[in-house]
């Protein structure tokens, strides 16, 4: 019914994986992250270092600074970075979807202007989809772009825009024609310079205490014609084409991975039956998810648009990211009140557990809420 063909990673990924691990071994001071969430660590210097090694825009044409490498090679690099808890947040969106979007729909001029800097790890992008009244219902966007001499004037508000206060550009979904009977018509994508006049960025503190997402208000912000992506009015098709890239990667099941590592450290010396089963249960989930994610990489490599399969990986992966800390919590040897001093491995476990738990509500929201993803899957099953 829904087939995830077994895919063996090609041999050339073995040396690449070793190379990434060597590189990560050399920057251990940057890796003491309490979580492996792809969005939390924003480190421009680290991104530039990855860019120098050719690990951003790996699959893109060399003309634009890319590496012309396979999706499998990109997969291996990204999973190694995430598993180590590396700070990949700065370039993540540009590498994962803004660049591929411009490669598919962008003009030659746009590719030349934006892609090389992305591959160098110097240019960071935000996703401009959600708005105050357009969350899961993306077609409800109200931000408008009115044609003026040489470009567009943008007015409206984008919300929950991760990294907008630190990134250089946003690719925004805006209305270039008033709403009609077809809600998905009249939408377009614009590349907006986040430092431009008329762009006001207000960070929003999240429940974990971090300031990652923002409210971005546009007041007559000017965008040149040259920064309209694709065709005016084609925005819906363009936005949905990003989803296979956005939803199936290892960041959709590795956000809680550091909790697992610290949990194993805590119990490895003398695992109880319960602890051993918890370790194995988590591994069984991870092994299946990783293989499904690699299957999707194989579909992308063959030029397919695996939107339903990607939704399945995200559905399973996000649920698992929430389940992992829960399995570990209940199997960790903390059941006795007032026992232990909370030092050492215990303290590491508690820190990474708390950090991940506080981020976990976002796991099943970002990149498409769970309920929306299930709708995509249901459509794939022929139910709607």
């Amino acid at each position: 019914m829904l087939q995830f063909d077994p895919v063996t990673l090609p041999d050339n990924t073995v040396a690449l994986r070793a190379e990434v691990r060597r590189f990560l071994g050399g920057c251990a001071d940057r890796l003491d992250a309490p979580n492996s969430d792809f969005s939390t660590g924003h480190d421009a210097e680290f991104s530039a270092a990855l860019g120098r090694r050719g690990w951003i825009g790996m699959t893109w044409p060399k003309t634009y600074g890319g590496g012309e490498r396979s999706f499998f090679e990109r997969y291996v690099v990204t999973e190694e970075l995430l598993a180590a808890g590396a700070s990949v947040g700065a370039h993540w969106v540009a590498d994962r979807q803004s660049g591929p979007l411009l490669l598919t729909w962008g003009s030659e001029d746009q590719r030349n202007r934006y892609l090389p800097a992305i591959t160098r790890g110097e240019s960071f992008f935000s996703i401009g989809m959600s708005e105050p009244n357009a969350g899961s219902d993306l077609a409800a966007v109200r931000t408008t772009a009115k044609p003026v001499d040489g470009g567009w004037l943008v007015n409206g508000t984008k919300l929950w825009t991760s990294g907008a206060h630190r990134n250089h550009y946003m690719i925004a979904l805006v209305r270039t024609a008033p709403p009609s009977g077809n809600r998905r018509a009249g939408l377009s994508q614009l590349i907006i310079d986040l430092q431009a006049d008329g762009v006001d960025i207000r960070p929003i503190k999240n429940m974990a205490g971090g300031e990652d997402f923002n409210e971005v208000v546009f007041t007559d912000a000017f965008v040149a014609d040259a920064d309209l992506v694709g065709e005016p009015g084609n925005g819906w098709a363009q936005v949905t084409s990003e989803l296979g890239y956005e939803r199936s990667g290892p960041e959709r099941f590795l956000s809680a991975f550091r909790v697992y590592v610290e949990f194993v450290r805590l119990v490895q010396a003398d695992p109880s039956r319960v602890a051993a089963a918890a370790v194995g249960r988590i591994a069984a989930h991870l092994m299946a998810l990783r293989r499904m994610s690699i299957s999707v990489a194989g579909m992308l490599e063959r030029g397919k648009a695996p939107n339903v399969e990607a939704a399945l990986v995200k559905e399973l992966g996000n649920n698992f990211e929430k389940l992992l800390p829960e399995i570990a919590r209940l199997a960790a040897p903390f059941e006795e009140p007032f026992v232990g001093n909370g030092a050492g491995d215990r303290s590491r476990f508690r820190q990474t557990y708390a950090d991940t738990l506080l981020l976990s509500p976002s796991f099943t929201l970002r990149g498409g809420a769970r309920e929306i993803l299930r709708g995509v899957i249901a459509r794939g099953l022929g139910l709607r």
Partner: protein
Amino acid sequence: MRQVLLDTAARILQDGCTKADLDTAELGEFPGPLWRTFCDQGFHLMALPDSGVELGDAFRVLRVAGRFAVPLPLAEALLANRWLRGPGDGLNVVGRWLGDDAPGGRSAAPRATEAASAGSAQEDAGVFVEVPWGRAAQSVVGVAADGTLWAAAPSGVQQGANLAGEPRDQVGADAVRPLACREPVLALLALSRVALSAGALERVLEFGVGYVQEREQFGRPLAKFQAVQQMLAATAAEVAAANRAADAAIDAIGDERFELEVAAAKARVGEAVGVVAETVHQVHGAMGFTYEHQLHHFTRRLWAWRDEYGNEAYWQARLGRHICSLGAEQVWDFLATRS
């Protein structure tokens, strides 16, 4: 070649596994015609080392058999014939040797040479339990707690069944003889449950998807209700994960990590079974709770199979202990070594 094999199996099963066939088998009547068709096509010898069929393909046939809730002890017959080598024409099945020790009170595994020379020296009597269709068997291969294999002709059968109504008999044996075997016996048996379950899970999902499109309430098909769509989407995700896990374990036959891959698959598939059976029964309403509907032949087997040859907890702990022995710093490497 593989596809021809699987298609042939599917055709045989399609004809021989109707609801009526499943009902009759549950009454305890061995489905002889279906078994003979399999034998005529050579399927019963498929898992022999020199059969010309990859062992993995035998398990892929089992996955197809799971799609039809096959009312035969196909898995145990294939593996018994593999381990007996010269199996003859009758039904041979694998069961469990009752007791903590191997026959004769020995707990050491007989080595190939030792077993060959020991030959008829072992004449212990005893009991095999959980023997699928022991009542119809010509000989039984019993797995002892230490993983050694012992064969005997049945003498006296006490009938029993698992919660799916599949015969699981207790079989007496007057004279057991050791079988030489260096294979991970328990893991292969567990893999048979993984493969059967993967196929059955897929079929159960299809029942659910089909039913909600036909059944109308409140003036529209159940499929049009978001709550129903959400349930089946989550179910489809579990089925997809279970099948990917099953594939990985089948592909790992002969690999040094085989037992660990089986552990991961048995654990993952078992977890999927709970979710899938629950939700697909729920969308079928009371109709799916009747004996008249075929759904229970599949869900009851899934519930039985997840406990046979080690449940999730057993295999999770086995996999978990291995990972603990590697240590926290090696966890990622263990997970990322194989795709």
